[in-house]
């Protein structure tokens, strides 16, 4: 830390230059301004209570991820026989049928990505509140990945939507959507909003203050 302080001059940021950045149109305004001149968005130097809001949305997402996995995401009616399948159950079924590609896509989109995203957000929130040296650059990269992969978890919901629309042959074969689809869609939305609420600039404020 000391080496860093000696070698670099204090970086000029909007906040320490008496400016505030509009998050919608990216125009700078004096720090005292309450609304952006160009687009009239309410201005604030940092997203207020960013970590708390992110964390509470994250906890909601984690709680909803439980019913998303317990309840069936869809039920298939084949010649009068109804089979219900959960997200995990669906993956296992595909593995048994030898459709490794589909199993892999669903596994990545519905299990690995959401869980990895939840861990990443929790880690970001933890680091943002920690006082001592954090790796801003790496954390910002982690945030970018988290934000980018967010919407890809919706794949499973779309797959169900298409199957439900397509496979409606009455008694022979039909598919009905299950409660887990709603729960899972909310999980994805919650993690997306949580990531969106997280203000990476608070990570960098630590360097600026040193």
């Amino acid at each position: 830390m000391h080496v860093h302080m000696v070698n670099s001059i204090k970086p000029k940021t909007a906040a320490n230059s008496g400016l505030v950045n509009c998050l919608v149109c990216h125009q700078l305004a004096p720090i005292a301004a309450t609304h952006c001149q160009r687009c009239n968005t309410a201005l604030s130097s940092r997203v207020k209570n960013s970590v708390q809001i992110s964390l509470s949305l994250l906890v909601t997402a984690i709680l909803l991820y439980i019913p998303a996995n317990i309840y069936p995401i869809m039920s298939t009616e084949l010649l009068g026989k109804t089979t219900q399948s959960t997200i995990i159950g669906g993956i296992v079924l595909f593995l048994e049928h030898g459709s490794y590609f589909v199993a892999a896509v669903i596994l990545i989109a519905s299990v690995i990505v959401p869980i990895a995203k939840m861990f990443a957000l929790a880690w970001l929130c933890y680091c943002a509140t920690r006082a001592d040296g954090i790796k801003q650059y790496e954390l910002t990269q982690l945030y970018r990945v988290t934000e980018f992969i967010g919407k890809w978890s919706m794949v499973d919901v779309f797959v169900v939507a298409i199957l439900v629309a397509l496979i409606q042959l009455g008694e022979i074969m039909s598919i009905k959507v299950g409660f887990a689809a709603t729960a899972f869609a909310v999980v994805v939305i919650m993690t997306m909003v949580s990531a969106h609420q997280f203000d990476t600039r608070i990570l960098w404020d630590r360097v600026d203050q040193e």
Partner: protein
Amino acid sequence: MNKAQPHLHACLECDLLVNMPDAISHRTNVHCPRCNHSIAMGHNNAKQYVLATSFTALILMVVACTFSFISFSSNEQIRTINLLQTFTELYTQEYYFVAVLVFSFILLLPTLYLTSVCLIILSTFRGFEIVPSVGLGKLMSYILPWSMAEVFLIGVLVALIKVTSMADISLEPSFWAYVIFAPLFTHIVSVIDSHRLWDWIEQAGACSHG
């Protein structure tokens, strides 16, 4: 030439003040020197290019909504669906929330985004605003994270791999329209950087008020 006025810009992710160059050469990015966030991308003919591609994408969307999407046949029964049925079927099964989400993510929001950018660009040419450009710009920044055309496309492909084992599938015109639409939409989004977009909005405003 892409003219970006020499002015200060605060990085969205780390708040560092960056002096924007006068001109950014074609298809090169300006990155934040501290956190590497991509701030702006140069394009020699962005206005015409975005207008033309957005218009093409809108036409593809109309095509995708007009014709049939996929047909599915099993045991001499045939079912053909159009794109709209991917959410209307969810609606008839009383999963209203998921139905509205699918409708918004794959159709409504991408269409609104493209329509907004077309209206903004047309306002800069014609000298009057049909819809206030500032409002459209704000709308675009709010809906962008929720446009999931490319995610839906992957969902369609996964669903198709799932069903090919149990039935005969034929891909209809509207499917191909969406296959072109989704990557095109992603490409358009990558060309519209917010910096340039708000320059256009200012031009549109200056034309109609001055």
